[in-house]
């Protein structure tokens, strides 16, 4: 099987990795460069647990052909905190007890960040729409919605990425 070299930046750090033909980005992020924050929930694009930002846009890494991120800028929940300082979204998720098993949390945070980066003052409907591709089985969504709205009020969207 042929391997292709791919370079991209992940959370501001440049990465170079060899990928298999047909390999998806989720697999490469997790096993290739060791960022375990995006999760495998379906491999079908139906759960959102693998959501990462590519050039600032939310993408499903399980449906992204790894070699297509050549030269692009990726961010994941693994890089959301700045040093020891949590991103306002992370802080809000904690305060609202918006994580139970925590497995969807990473994807939810990326979906939320993608929203707030574009729309710093979202309505509840905007938030609902933003997480509509992400499945949570534990919380019933309400604490997540409240956390995102709270984070927006605390200026999460005005903070630079």
């Amino acid at each position, binding site marked *: 099987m042929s391997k292709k070299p791919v370079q991209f930046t992940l959370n501001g750090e440049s990465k170079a990795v060899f990928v298999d033909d047909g390999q998806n980005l989720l697999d490469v992020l997790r096993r290739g460069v060791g960022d375990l924050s995006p999760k495998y929930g379906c491999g079908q694009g139906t759960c959102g647990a693998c959501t990462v930002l590519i050039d600032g846009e939310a*993408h499903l890494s399980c*449906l*992204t052909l790894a070699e297509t991120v050549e030269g692009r800028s990726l961010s994941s929940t693994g890089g959301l905190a700045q040093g020891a300082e949590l991103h306002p979204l992370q802080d809000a998720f904690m305060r609202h007890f918006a994580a139970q098993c925590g497995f969807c949390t990473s994807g939810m945070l990326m*979906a939320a960040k993608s929203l707030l980066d574009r729309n710093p003052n979202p309505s509840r409907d905007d938030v609902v*729409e*933003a997480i509509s*591709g992400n499945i949570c089985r534990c919380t019933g969504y309400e604490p997540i919605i409240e956390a995102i709205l709270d984070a927006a009020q605390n200026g999460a969207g005005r903070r630079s990425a």
Partner: protein
Amino acid sequence: MSISVKTFASTAEAATALSGDRAARFMGGGTLIMRAVNEGDQSFNTILLANDPALTEIQAQGDRLIIGSRVTMAQILASRDLEFLHPVARAVGGPAIRNMATVGGNLFAEHPYGDLTAALLVLDCQVTLAGGQTSTLPDLLRDRTREPRVLVASVSIVRPQSGIFKFRKVSRVKPKGVSLMTIAAWIPQSGGRVSGARVAYSSMGPTPMRVQAVEQALEGATLDETGVGNALSAATSGIEPPTDAIASSWYRREVAPVHLKRTLLGG
């Protein structure tokens, strides 16, 4: 069978590779192809990519709009020219899917997907293939799984006057879920009566489809409860709606007139 990926600079080269290899698939945004790869689909082993920038362009030409086949739902939502399609693009997937899913992919998406295609069916869609040939959308849908496979370069649709174009996606899950039934309608009126209506469904058959019986019944009708009566009676005439995990054929048949009425008479 391990996967190989081939990237082409030009759409035409990719189209040639596609037509010459039954085990090749062209990848637009990846939402269909990568899922198949992940699930071990044995029907293909080659993924074709094309970097042609024309595939991702939206152009206005007179009263028509040309949309490249790799234009994403998110691009449609960002386009002022395509504002009439925003409710349609927003009905597809969640935001991440919309950043990936393409117009071309939607044309080839199997049931229950294809909401955008239903809209295109009533917008007088002309399909331009990679080689420059054109096709009608119904023809393309009919032949979409036949060999040799074709690569769509762009679609051309007409820009509707305000109020003519109507769209409704019925889903069990809010705000986003797969379609139980999607209805797109183009309802021009002349002297208070419908003239030249076009109506299409998605998720009501093997592919998105025009619904001629409804269109005929609407001809000359007034857009009110009694005026659309015949059209509602014809809502599933000649159609055998599918049974799937979302709903049975019986249910789709029962509610088709209800949702058609709400589409025609609603906003």
